[in-house]
């Protein structure tokens, strides 16, 4: 088993020191490995009253596109066993509003701000990446590739190797910021896409995005979501996510942000042991708005209990032999 992401030789004195939660992810310094998953934390402002945002490892903000998007008609969500389906339609105010109205307060925080971007053509993505390049306070870009390319028959970038490679290469060329590819789990072999992202020059991976799902009201015979299908998230998808992180971690050298149904530190540690250098809390923020900080404290307590000096020691340390 390959030991990933700056593993350190265990220092015998480390057990007496406070464990080190910091990680360097794709060139971005994180005070701890816990981030917020895109689309589940807005632009941070709604959580300001409830938790101390400065204690987060980082905030991955809601997806930003070139122009504002009004989103899908309701119903947009449906609760499922230990999870939920959503088809929000990537509603967002667009990159200009993000830069002028959202980023100024975000950049005042003592936490890494990673901007999730998406589009419906390669040009869209490139234009957003260019606008964010050099914007003070942006630590990196996370590229949501689970969108259809309207310029080539609506094929989803993230489920077609060639389309994914071309898109990620183009974004990579458009910015000096670290580029993190958020992969779609709706593929047969995640390692192919992980390698494609690495080959395109991406600095890190986020996985997983939501799994495509559907629910039907049997009485009315209508889909539960106006969009018919939606993205499944929450604890229901966690084993799938852990498996994909484990597979991808063995296939590439770039670091991984693991996500999918994390509610507790134990959930997060599964991802870290599977090979994730950092984790993101998504749907968990809806269930418990303080989930992120509870995970940070839980990881700290686990490291103390295990006598580990740094969270980096645990990355990829699942015992498969």
């Amino acid at each position, binding site marked *: 088993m390959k030991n990933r992401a700056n593993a350190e030789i265990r220092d015998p004195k480390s057990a007496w020191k406070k464990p080190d939660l910091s990680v360097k992810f794709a060139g971005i310094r994180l005070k701890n490995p816990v981030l917020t998953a895109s689309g589940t934390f807005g632009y941070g402002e*709604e959580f300001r*009253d*409830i938790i101390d945002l400065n204690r987060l490892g980082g905030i991955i903000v809601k997806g930003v596109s070139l122009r504002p998007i009004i989103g899908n008609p*309701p119903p947009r*969500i449906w*609760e499922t066993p230990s999870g939920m389906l959503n088809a*929000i339609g990537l*509603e967002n105010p667009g990159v200009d509003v993000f830069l002028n109205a959202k980023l100024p307060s975000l950049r005042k925080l003592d936490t890494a701000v990673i901007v999730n971007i998406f589009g419906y053509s390669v040009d869209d993505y490139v234009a957003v990446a260019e606008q964010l390049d050099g914007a003070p306070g942006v630590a990196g870009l996370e590229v949501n590739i689970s969108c259809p390319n309207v310029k080539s028959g609506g094929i989803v970038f993230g489920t077609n190797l060639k389309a994914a490679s071309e898109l990620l290469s183009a974004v990579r060329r458009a910015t000096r910021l670290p580029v993190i590819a958020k992969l779609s789990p709706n593929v047969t072999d995640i390692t192919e896409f992980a390698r494609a992202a690495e080959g395109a020059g991406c600095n890190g991976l986020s996985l997983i995005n939501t799994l495509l799902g559907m629910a039907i009201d049997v009485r009315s015979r209508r889909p539960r979501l106006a969009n018919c299908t939606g993205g499944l998230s929450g604890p229901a998808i966690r084993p799938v996510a852990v498996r994909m992180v484990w597979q991808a971690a063995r296939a590439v050298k770039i670091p991984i942000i693991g996500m999918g149904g994390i509610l507790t530190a134990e959930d997060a540690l599964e991802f870290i042991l599977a090979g994730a250098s950092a984790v993101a809390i998504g749907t968990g923020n*809806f269930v418990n708005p303080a989930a992120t900080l509870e995970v940070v404290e839980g990881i700290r307590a686990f490291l103390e209990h295990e006598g580990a000096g740094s969270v980096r020691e645990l990355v990829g340390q699942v015992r498969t032999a």
Partner: protein
Amino acid sequence: MPQTRQYPAEVLLHRRAGGEYFRLVLRAPALAASAVPGQFVMLRVSENRDPLLARPFGIASVVSRKDIVLYYRVAGRGTTLLTTVRPGQRLGLLGPLGKGFPVPEKGTTPLLIAGGSGFPPLLFFTARYGKRARLFVGSRDKACLPPSGVMKDFRSRVLGIHYATEDGSCGTCGFVTDALAAFMDRPDRFGRPVIYACGPHPMLAAVSRLAADRNIPCYISMEARMACGLGVCMGCSVPVASGGYKRVCKEGPVFDSREISWSGPVSLQLRKAECGVRNEE
């Protein structure tokens, strides 16, 4: 702005309130002290991961600035589980959330329209500004009317109560909007009427139409399925007349009825909204 907080709120009282309803009293001091009528809370009905999401409930009243009272009826898995909760237990509670009703202006007569289980926010409304109000209560049948304890509180606070049931088992036979229209047509009404309504979506649509026809200000408390209650999941959005969507949990749940696009697809989809409880069947 009152600050939203998260609590492990202790259950103080929990019992059947009469008819189909349960009454739940939770200790949440800061929340109780700052909440205003029309606001809601998100309540986790279990510590388990299924059901995963918290349920939204309109605040029905505040006791001694320390406790909040909620009413619900069993409408799905979450509320079924909630019935098993005992005093002494602690439940995850988040609030106060959303925007409440605007404070009635001097010289106006609030006309309160409560449909189905939509009475809780209006009960809170009458506790604060009930004196000159008139209440219109509508439901499917007598059993679905608010519990007698609630009606007693309403009676002690408002000028008059009008009942309407769809099967005629109590009050006027028909929709609550018919009773409201009949009242509006009476020559002896006084003060400038302002409508405040909470209930199922079709009722809100009908009330809004009636208000628009007569050029009466109308504020409605809307319901929607929601995941977070904080304005980040964007799951509860409803179409607005100016185009696009607004979040029930953040810009609402109380809206000026003219803001909402009533012809949008939402009216079909929220057909079985159960008031006060928005995440259940």
